[in-house]
């Protein structure tokens, strides 16, 4: 039997969930022997591959790149997991939602701020920076999500509990202290 193909993606988040993943320390060695990590911010792979068994999605969906990648992830993965609070419910990434039009925020940061360097906005038309979505979305608002792994970030213990269950073909069952937001 071939080894399970595992991927992790980083959307709109701080990468803290991936940092927490690295906190799994020596268990990562066992994991590396049990699975093939086919796509991840910690692996140099350009395109999200076909035929992935489990994908952990960190971050909310805040821009056009996030949106495109998440659709690709869903099409090419058997199991998609919302990995951490940003993917689960938007969290800090979605705190801009009540402020409305993201253009106003971008102007504040890149044009009107006293510390600005260039005095103009990055132009989404040039394709250098992806366009911000009007509202930051949780992953399950965009595609079907098979399991949720809350936490900001989820502790290494939570991640291990969930990943072990998923690789064994079980639905992860987290105890109350392992599924608390924040």
């Amino acid at each position, binding site marked *: 039997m071939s080894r399970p193909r595992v991927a992790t993606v980083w959307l709109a988040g701080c990468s803290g969930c991936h940092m927490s993943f690295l906190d799994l320390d020596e268990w990562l060695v066992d994991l590396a022997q049990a699975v093939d990590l086919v796509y991840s911010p910690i692996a140099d792979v350009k395109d999200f591959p076909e035929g992935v068994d489990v994908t952990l999605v960190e971050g909310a969906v805040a821009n056009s790149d996030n949106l495109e990648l998440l659709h690709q992830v869903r099409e090419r993965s058997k199991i998609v997991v919302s990995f951490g609070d940003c993917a689960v419910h938007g969290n800090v990434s979605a*705190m801009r939602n009540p402020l*409305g039009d993201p253009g106003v925020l971008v102007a504040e940061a890149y044009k009107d701020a006293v510390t600005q360097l260039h005095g103009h906005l990055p132009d989404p038309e040039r394709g250098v920076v992806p366009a911000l979505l009007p509202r930051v979305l949780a992953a399950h608002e965009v595609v079907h999500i098979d399991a949720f792994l*809350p936490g*900001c970030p989820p502790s290494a213990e939570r991640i291990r509990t969930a990943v072990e269950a998923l690789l064994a073909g079980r639905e992860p069952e987290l105890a109350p202290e392992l599924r608390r937001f924040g």
Partner: protein
Amino acid sequence: MAKVTISIDGVEVKAEQGTTVMAAAASVGVKIPGLCQYDGLSTHGACRLCMVQLNGTPKPKPACATPITEGMEVHTTTPRLQEHRKVLLEMLFAEGQHVCAVCVASGACELQTLAADVGVDHVSFNPPATRQTLDLSHPYLGYDPTRCILCTRCVRACGEVEGAFTWGLAGRGREVHLITDLGTPWGESTTCTGCGKCISVCPTGAMFSRGTSVAERRPRRDLVPTLTARRDLEAARKEPS
């Protein structure tokens, strides 16, 4: 006073007539979840999380506001009730901006803890986010309406225990919000004594001491029940029955 016998999740419980289902359950160590009920304060019955099922009654009843009656059979954690609680908690999360990761109350928040206990691992609802402004006009206390679940514990503690009646509710439906005095900023309130009881009873991070950072707020949950018990004791001494 007459004793009444009821059963709670199959366990026989004896309690005085007039006791609520929630208090009777607590007397035998069964904790029925609730976010608006608070020992020492009057009953409000707003959060609906303490709903229990009673034999012979099709509709669930709020345990905090239902007095026990002889022979009552109470079920506190049926699948139907757990589902009901999950939906209610998700609606509370959807309505505000409960970003636990950057909240003063994280780790000591009743909403956060209850959600984990009941099994809320994501939020299914997405109402349009409303922009609300913090009240930071008070020199050392603060109020964040985006974390407020309108349980009115602060309103009751302020009026019933401190006797200041600073906090109140204004608006209707989705517009309901807390106000100080008649809508003046907290810092300009002429009734607020600055006692901080509102902070001690707040189940979430809506009320806080200014300068408190993420996960630093640790309210004194025993303050109000202790004060109320002392007040009741003094009243009983003055009027010997």
